[in-house]
């Protein structure tokens, strides 16, 4: 998207994704080690016996997360509908959401009109109603 624009130079984050991930893995391993050490050396304050098993919370976090995300992904098959399902025009990026009236700096017409058209084409699967609505909204923005 927005191929007509030269990309901004990569940020620190973008250059270091690999490092951040490696750091996360290292911290996770350290946590497990700390948990094991604490389990045999220290005294855990727990409400249930099973809570004290070393690595239980790590497993709970990982498994819950994967289970949640994959289940939700399957739910899409059942629940997902087009944006215009309720007969309302879906929200499009129409320049300023609050309108020029509420803009203190008088700037940021969001992206240019070109982007607007591109987005509309992306949403090509939408029905007639939607396209009309976007068209009408587009003229309002011209004012």
């Amino acid at each position, binding site marked *: 998207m927005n191929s007509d624009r030269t990309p901004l130079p990569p940020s620190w984050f973008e250059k270091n994704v690999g490092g951040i991930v490696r750091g996360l893995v290292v911290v*996770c391993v350290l946590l497990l080690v*700390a948990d094991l050490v*604490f389990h045999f050396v220290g005294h855990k304050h727990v409400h249930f016996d099973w809570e004290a098993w070393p690595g239980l919370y790590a497993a709970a976090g990982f498994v819950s997360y*994967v289970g949640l*995300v994959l289940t939700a992904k399957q739910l899409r098959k059942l629940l*997902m509908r087009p944006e215009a399902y309720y007969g309302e025009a879906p929200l499009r990026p129409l320049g300023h*959401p609050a309108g020029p009236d509420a803009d203190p700096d008088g*700037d940021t017409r969001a992206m240019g009109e070109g982007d607007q058209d591109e987005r509309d084409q992306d949403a090509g699967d939408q029905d007639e109603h939607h396209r009309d609505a976007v068209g009408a909204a587009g003229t309002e923005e011209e004012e």
Partner: protein
Amino acid sequence: MNFFLDLLETMFPGELMLLGALLVPFLKGKLRLGYVVLLPILSLLHLLTLDVGYEAGATLLGYPLEVVRVDALSRIFGIVFHIAAILCCIYALHVKGWVEHVSTLVYAGAAIAATFAGDLITLFIFWELTALSSVFLIWQRGVVQPSHRERSYRAGMRYLIISVASGVLLLGGALLHYQDTGSLHFGLMGLDASRGAIFIFLAFGMKAAFPLMHNWVQDAYPEATVSGTVVLASFTTKLAIYALARGFAGTELLIPIGAAMTAFPIFFAVIENDMRRVLAYSLNNQLGFMVVGIGIGTELAINGAAAHAFAHILYKGLLLMSMGAVLYRTGTIKASELGGLHKSMPMTTVFCIIGALAISAFPGLSGFVTKSMVISAVGEAHLTIVFGVLLFASAGVCDHSGIKIPFFTFFAHDQGWRVKEAPKHMLIAMGLAAFLCIGIGVAPSFLYALLPYPELAAQYHAYEATHVLTMLELLLFAGLAFVALMKMGVYPPELPALNLDFDWFYRKGAPPVVREVYGLAGYARERLWTATLGAREAVRDIAKTHHEPPGGRMGEPWSASATTLWAALILGIMLLLQYGCSPAAGLQ
């Protein structure tokens, strides 16, 4: 000066904002903006002059009302409502018209006044006022963005109808409660206190977004203006949490209800594309933790619920403010259209991440020191299943609010946005909220001192080694799971679509059925009318000759409360029927 001080002394908390809001339309420019921010600050100072134990009353149509009751429970909610109002007013300084400012002040003032209401009628009045005043925050979206007019109008109507329905239940319940107990006092009642208690419970439950009554939150909040969503998310649902804590602490039914609230909205949050709607689902999940705490009802649990509500208002406000700033600058809030914004909005990114860590209950931030109280209370009550559900939900929060919101907005794929950083006033509001999120996390004792049971809270240590370790494990391994799913390419992509939820039933399912039934009923009535002409004339003749004397069965006087009850009931039914049939209410 003395005159004003005397006047202040007769005021109830929030009144300053309610009355002061009326002046806003007459002020212009900077004066108006300064006044809008000053008003909630003065109101907060006024509240702080009232000591715990302060009470004030009034009389309405012969009923004595307890308009003001300041105790530890109402005070902590009153204080955080004021802080939220101040932050919201700063955040909304870019708004040039007066409607949003007045709406915000009246809405916040009404929520504060309701918090301090000592009787059910005062509560009802301000309960309804919060609904009536806040709908303008949704409708204003259509005013400032004309292409959005129809959509805002419909969303606002749905919001208003559900809010008012909750008020009708509350009023009906209050009157039944009065008939049974002879008292309108709003205190701990429980479900068995009277025939009215269940209606009051349901009225609170609607606004606290109980499962299957939850959908108005996700439906309405994301449709409001940039600042309107922040305002809406701060008050109504937390007022309901306060009311539940006041009236139904220890009601065990709340434990499964709350557990369901923590778990099921997060599935929707994972696949939702509108980032403010993701946060509305997340709001529902957070309310669940509070509801569980109230259901357990021990001192620790009530402390936990109140503390979590306090922290929640601030970090949820912060997250919604950061998303509002993104909407304000880019014009969109869909995950499928966002990404890479950390390059152009670095400060907003940092504030959003602070909010995300706070809601995930990362050690060092506010969510950690408050949610742990609720979880400890569940542990002490030895509720194994609920404990497991809350752990699952905690990992879930880490996904949708902790990772999805900041990652897909500010990082992920750079979509080429070239926008300015958020305006200064928004950065100030976000900065203050972020400061409070960190402050509460680092020094929880200030918050703990405000809790309903401060002595117990003073002995509570959130930063206990086991707890810090286990929470870090839970969150970081959830983060690891995210990385793994992304690397494997199985994390669900952000798609421009909507997901069906319970609102389908009243937006798609019910209207044709109701219209059909209404049509049939009209037809049946007509047929009945013509068919019974003879019989009716006969009855009329009998009635004319043998009419009941005054004092007979038909002439019996009704009590005022019974009349109001029936009127409320009939109006409620009419409202629902009209809603189903009216094309203006916008149900396709």
